[in-house]
């Protein structure tokens, strides 16, 4: 039949990857921090599904461990940290935007097109690589940057940063499913450190300025 050849397994894993990309677009659409937190948790959940699927298709049981760690840390622990932060800090939930939703989604479509066009030139022969994974992961990466640049709330910037890590994780599974688990786990705990640092930043901002937007940070203070 016409069209690129696919197996059902590849098609379904590609669908999982694309859902992650759509959730990243959801971050651009979200109006308040709680919604972004939920989107991040959902994206991480689909990342775990992708890891488990790669483990199943590639016969690599250590990927199941990674999937489990991902669920515990990124679907349960980090979002609940955000929930606590939001409750204790009384930060405003709505996100100040420098670019409105419709325009940022159009910019996002442009970035995605750029990633797909450039990545289609890259000939990578991984053992497990649904062809969409690489382009989609780079799109998630750039969209994560877009979220960090155009949304001025600290917490949504942290979430943008965390989705960058999700994208990196996605690529590492897709290109090298045989990567030692210890390296992957290290990367995940790196993220935990980043969350702690950002949490501290949020608390400091809240304590000194009474706000969670970074818009006022460009003024020098003695």
């Amino acid at each position, binding site marked *: *039949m*016409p*069209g*690129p050849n*696919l*197996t*059902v397994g590849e*098609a*379904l894993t*590609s*669908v999982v990857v*694309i859902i992650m*990309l*759509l959730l990243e*677009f959801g971050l651009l*659409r979200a109006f308040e921090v709680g919604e972004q937190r939920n989107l991040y948790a959902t994206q991480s959940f689909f990342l775990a599904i992708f890891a488990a699927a790669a483990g199943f298709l590639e016969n690599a049981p250590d990927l199941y461990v990674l999937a489990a760690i991902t669920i515990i840390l990124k679907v349960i622990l980090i979002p609940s940290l955000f929930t606590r932060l939001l409750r204790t800090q009384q930060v405003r939930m709505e996100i100040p935007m420098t670019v409105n*939703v*419709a325009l940022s*989604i*159009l910019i*996002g*479509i442009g970035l*995605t*097109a750029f990633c*797909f*066009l450039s*990545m*289609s030139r890259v000939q990578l022969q991984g053992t497990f690589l*649904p*062809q*969409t994974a690489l*382009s*989609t992961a780079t799109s998630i990466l750039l969209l994560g940057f877009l979220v960090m640049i155009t949304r001025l709330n600290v917490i949504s910037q942290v979430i943008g940063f965390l989705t960058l890590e999700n994208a990196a994780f996605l690529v590492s599974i897709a290109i090298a499913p045989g990567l030692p688990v210890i390296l992957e786990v290290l990367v995940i705990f790196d993220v935990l450190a980043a969350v702690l640092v950002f949490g501290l930043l949020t608390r400091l901002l809240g304590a000194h300025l009474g706000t969670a937007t970074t818009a006022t940070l460009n003024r020098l203070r003695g």
Partner: protein
Amino acid sequence: MEELGGKTVLQVLQVLTLLIFSPLISGIIARVEAWLQSRRGPSFLQPYYDIAKFFKKDRAVGLPTSWIFTAAPIISFGCYLTIATLIPVLTNYPLPLAWMGDILGGAFLFGLSGFFLALAALDTASPYAGIGSSRAVFVGALTEPTLIFVFFTVALITHTDLPYAMAATLQSSLVQVFRPAHLLAMVALFMMILVDTGRIPIESHGSTLEFGLIDEGRVFEHSGPDMALVKWGSSMKQFLLFTILLNVMIVPWGLATTLQPAAVAIAIGSLLLKMIALGLIIVAIETSFAKLRLFKIPEFMAAGFLLSVLAILVFYLGGG
């Protein structure tokens, strides 16, 4: 020769299916929606009664109107009848007239019908009909790019632009169903059908509040048999769009493969069942979401556009 005769009968039957069953689907959706909102709701057959009532009434035509106002309902009705010959309503093989036009031909006919209804609304110089007309054109301009990208995706997947080819490709293997490009285009088309049938995120169906009306607002000035044609036409439009979504994009199973009457009966029955299932999904959406404000509509359209563009990118460059 005998085969051609059978095919011609089927061709007529396709149009008759559309004429007879389209108000039923509207009636069922309205009734189930009423149930979900703990109302008793109108009878399943209410749309038929409405149409019959309007046919019995006199026609009142505004003085300043031209021939366009009286011709528009007939033209739009005729467009819908023609579309029914182009798409796989009952059979999975092309009938004689299916070669008249491809997917783009069908889209042009939908466009022509909408164009005449919009002109007729402007023709009356009534402010409410005018607002409805300009809104419908505004929304239509936003759905167009998404629909075109969905057609491109179909064309890329099948190398043709015949709706029958898409259905055949889907039936050929399971991979084609789960192909990401296909799923994305399917969801994008579904979103645009919600828009085109005036469903909840965009417009509350059957509401009488003038400020929220888009499609329904255009037809305020029609009366009598004209109104009957417009009402019937709008449920036919819904039936046709559902048929395209179901028989071309989602579940092209159950279509008749032969000329046998039994196969055709099964095709009609399965089509109605599929439509009711889709209707239930739409009812669920209608009762669980709120209507978008008019200025939020472009965001909904941007989401649909995103899905259709991704479908092209994934198919063309991402190997999916």
